[in-house]
């Protein structure tokens, strides 16, 4: 079932009234969140004024290539950035109690009440994010003991229930397993169990299937989709547009630390407006739309700029086929709202027809 709301975004499975939805469903809002590296003259902005909303029952995706700032954004929400970085802007979380807090200004001592309880996190590589010296059962039980004050025995029973919920067979026996005894897919299921143990309303998943084989990825994506029941909101960070198409409702595309475009998953993948998004979508070789063999794959010319040498004007202009001298290399584009509720950071977006990405990819590299 889909509900059309005023911004033109279709929300799968939404049971809310259109008029109250935008008010009631927001669980987390990033308002001009920036991440700065270093201080003084050497300070660099690695994430630049990212604004986005995570809503109940909805999956918001952050997509971009290495160095685009997508992972830093998700770490900032969890206050997991290294101490060499600091944050400006706000991270407004509506707690389950209804109270609003700014996570970026919470004292460190209060973070325990956010992490795991309000926001769960799933990382890319479960081998490095699970404790190699504790059993799976101990690591899940810990969530219940720390956050809920449960006894070891009660927590253990709950841990077993969690393993069942994330699809691990022989859950009772697996409680005693060490992380290295499990396969990559099973370890990722354990990560998911820990992330959702205390039933947080938000789950952040940072490249959760990138390290997995494709047949296992399909299984984990099914499990992750199931997490959005109970009106949980999800922030899904990925570089893989195929995975994004499977899970996301709304997509924010990041380039060189900025969101350059956002919109519904259909708008971004099928009717992109920003030249970078168009190029990114066209660069993906696809088994559903095979090209003649040996035909050149489309690729965006040039490469991602270095932090210390960010181009003036639009950060994408040196690689952009639509860039106009005197404009794109001078004027810094601001986010503009499109008629279908998307956002685009491009000075020329109104002149550039939203491309059907199929024709873009078939043009090959002749763009």
């Amino acid at each position, binding site marked *: *079932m*889909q509900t059309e709301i005023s911004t033109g*975004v*279709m*929300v*799968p*499975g939404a049971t809310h009234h259109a008029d109250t939805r935008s008010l009631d469903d927001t669980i987390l809002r990033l308002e001009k969140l920036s991440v700065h590296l270093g201080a003084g003259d050497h300070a660099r902005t690695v994430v630049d004024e990212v604004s986005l909303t995570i809503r109940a029952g909805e999956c918001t995706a952050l997509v971009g*290539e*290495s160095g685009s700032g997508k992972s830093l954004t998700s770490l900032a929400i969890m206050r997991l950035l290294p101490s060499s970085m600091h944050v400006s802007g706000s991270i407004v979380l509506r707690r389950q109690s209804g109270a609003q807090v700014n996570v970026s200004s919470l004292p460190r001592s209060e973070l325990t009440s956010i992490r795991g309880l309000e926001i769960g996190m799933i990382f890319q590589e479960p081998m490095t994010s699970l404790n190699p010296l504790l059993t799976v059962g101990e690591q899940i039980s810990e969530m219940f003991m720390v956050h809920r004050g449960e006894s070891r025995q009660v927590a253990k029973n709950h841990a077993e229930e969690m393993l069942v919920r994330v699809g691990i067979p022989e859950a009772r026996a697996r409680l005693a397993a060490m992380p290295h005894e499990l*396969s*990559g*897919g*099973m370890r990722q299921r354990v990560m998911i169990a820990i992330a959702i143990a205390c039933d947080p309303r938000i789950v952040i998943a940072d490249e959760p299937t990138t390290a997995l*084989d*494709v*047949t*296992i*990825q*399909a*299984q984990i*994506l*099914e499990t992750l*989709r199931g997490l959005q029941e109970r009106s949980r909101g999800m922030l899904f960070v990925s*570089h*893989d*547009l*195929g*995975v*994004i*198409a*499977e899970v996301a*409702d*709304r997509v924010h595309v990041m380039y060189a630390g900025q969101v350059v475009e956002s919109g*519904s*998953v*259909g708008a971004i*993948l*099928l009717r992109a407006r920003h030249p970078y998004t168009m*190029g*990114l*979508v066209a*660069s*993906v*070789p*696809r*088994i*559903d739309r*095979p*090209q003649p*063999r*040996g*035909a*050149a*794959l*489309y*690729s*965006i010319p040039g*490469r*991602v700029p270095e932090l210390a040498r960010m181009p003036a004007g639009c950060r994408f202009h040196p690689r952009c086929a639509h860039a106009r001298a005197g404009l794109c290399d001078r004027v810094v584009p601001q986010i503009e709202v499109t008629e279908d509720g998307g956002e685009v950071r491009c000075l020329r977006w109104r002149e550039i027809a939203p491309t059907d990405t199929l024709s873009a990819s078939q043009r090959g*590299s002749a763009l």
Partner: protein
Amino acid sequence: MTLVEVRELHKQFVLRKGLFGKVSRVNAVSDVSLNVVQGEVLALVGESGSGKSTLGRLVARLDTPTAGEILYNGANVASLNARQLFAFRRHVQMIFQDPYASLNPHMRVRDMLAEPLQIHGLARGRNAIGARIEQLMGAVGLSSTLASRFPHEFSGGQRQRLSIARALAVEPEFIVADEAVSALDVSTQAQVVNLLSDLKRKLRLTVLFISHNLAIVQNVADRVAVLYLGRILEVAPTEDLFAQARHPYTQALLGAIPVPDPTARRKRIVLKGEIPSPMRPPSGCVFRTRCPHALADCARIVPPLRPVGAGRLAACIRDDLMSGSAPQAIASTTSSRAIP
């Protein structure tokens, strides 16, 4: 013409837990027979533990087989003497996945490209070597002004270009590319894939292209061999394989690849269960524990790789599935998510 002939190849690794610990054996490659035809790009695809990298390393003689043989231009690679091996190294080069690990961090680009030229006596004298380095860097799209830099001064895509330049320095005829573009971002990946395709055409290379990325394989390969737990389950010309995969594993593998189109409602087979440990592969058909079509016999019979159509081979005892005339009866679950 067959350039490489792999015959009943086996590779077993022996693992020991601790000094006196239990010995376990992994059959990384089991009974693999395969030909590589001169001038073709043959792709090896499969998931972790499928043995595709081990097979590539065996063919490049970076490892020696436990049993079976590899013939390169008719000569058994395992029994090459020192002089023959030297010549073999000139003809066969490898490109690895991780350009951060496969380039010597202490060597300038110039030196790492000059080394193979000097060893093989392909260019003598400063000027000749310099000219060849300039030519090699040009061939992979790098400016020769970067020749005095170290690997860390390059981006991932540029480093992979350097790896390619280094492999090409000795004018090889056969390249084993092991996940050569897997570590790269999508826009860079396309650039390097295009470069490899161009070079292959210009230099008439034969390529063994090892990859888990089937969309790229579809773009570059002439033929595809699908591996699972050390065994080849299917071999077919690329178009045929993608148009109609015969083996249930290939079908599942293709079906599991997400495509960047939220409206695509593809037939999706989500395979149950895990990839079994290569230390304890299932009896009979290695895929049977996850196969939606498995019969009782599948646990007893190791299915031979057999012809199932023009230029196609598959290892499955289900004649009804292999004939190609039967519809692809698949336990499929059509994705039913609402598309925003």
